[in-house]
């Protein structure tokens, strides 16, 4: 079985400040980890993924995420938040060589205030 936890339902940050959206996972074997963003009444947009290699992954729109195997975490970060970053963020995990089903966390709403 595989699972993802996003411990914060909502994260509030001021524009220009750094942001972190937390994600922890549980999966047997090597994980494939993903971050997606969802704007109101829209589908999910792919931000970044970790498959293997460098633990720091850079993605779209200035976002990055750090894979930490010992803490089973994959937190999403951005050095300077924009008001337009306000959206719903989902972390997802897929087990290597175990089909392509994604298991999603419950989502974290990011609110960036001017």
């Amino acid at each position, binding site marked *: 079985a595989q699972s993802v936890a996003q411990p914060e339902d909502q994260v509030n940050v001021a524009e220009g400040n750094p942001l972190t959206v937390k994600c922890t996972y549980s999966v047997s074997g090597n994980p494939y980890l993903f971050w997606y963003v969802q704007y109101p009444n*829209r589908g*999910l947009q*792919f931000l970044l993924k970790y498959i293997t290699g460098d633990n720091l992954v850079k993605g779209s729109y200035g976002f990055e995420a750090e894979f930490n195997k010992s803490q089973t975490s994959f937190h999403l970060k951005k050095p300077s938040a924009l008001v337009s970053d306000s959206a719903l963020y989902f972390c997802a995990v897929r087990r290597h060589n175990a*089909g392509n089903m*994604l298991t*999603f966390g419950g*989502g974290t709403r990011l609110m960036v205030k001017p």
Partner: protein
Amino acid sequence: EAGVTQSPTHLIKTRGQQVTLRCSPISGHTSVYWYQQALGLGLQFLLWYDEGEERNRGNFPPRFSGRQFPNYSSELNVNALELEDSALYLCASSLQMTDTQYFGPGTRLTVL
């Protein structure tokens, strides 16, 4: 390059009816996935098709079914609609079975 497209955008049905949702993957993508995003339940995996075959299904009753056509487009069928089927149904596609999934805008289904 066109993204994943889904139709219709919105749909209103009554309990007991049947519905068909459609998805066209990104050109060249052979795998199609369906997910349900229901209020309070998050995103749940429904079905995965690759090369015309059903490869995996999530924990949903048999009244949820689908198929993938030779051009890799896909349909999701839901029979005997129940109120709790009201949700946003998202389709995603990937180049290969193990590649990144790219999502469409979804179909909002309301069951009255």
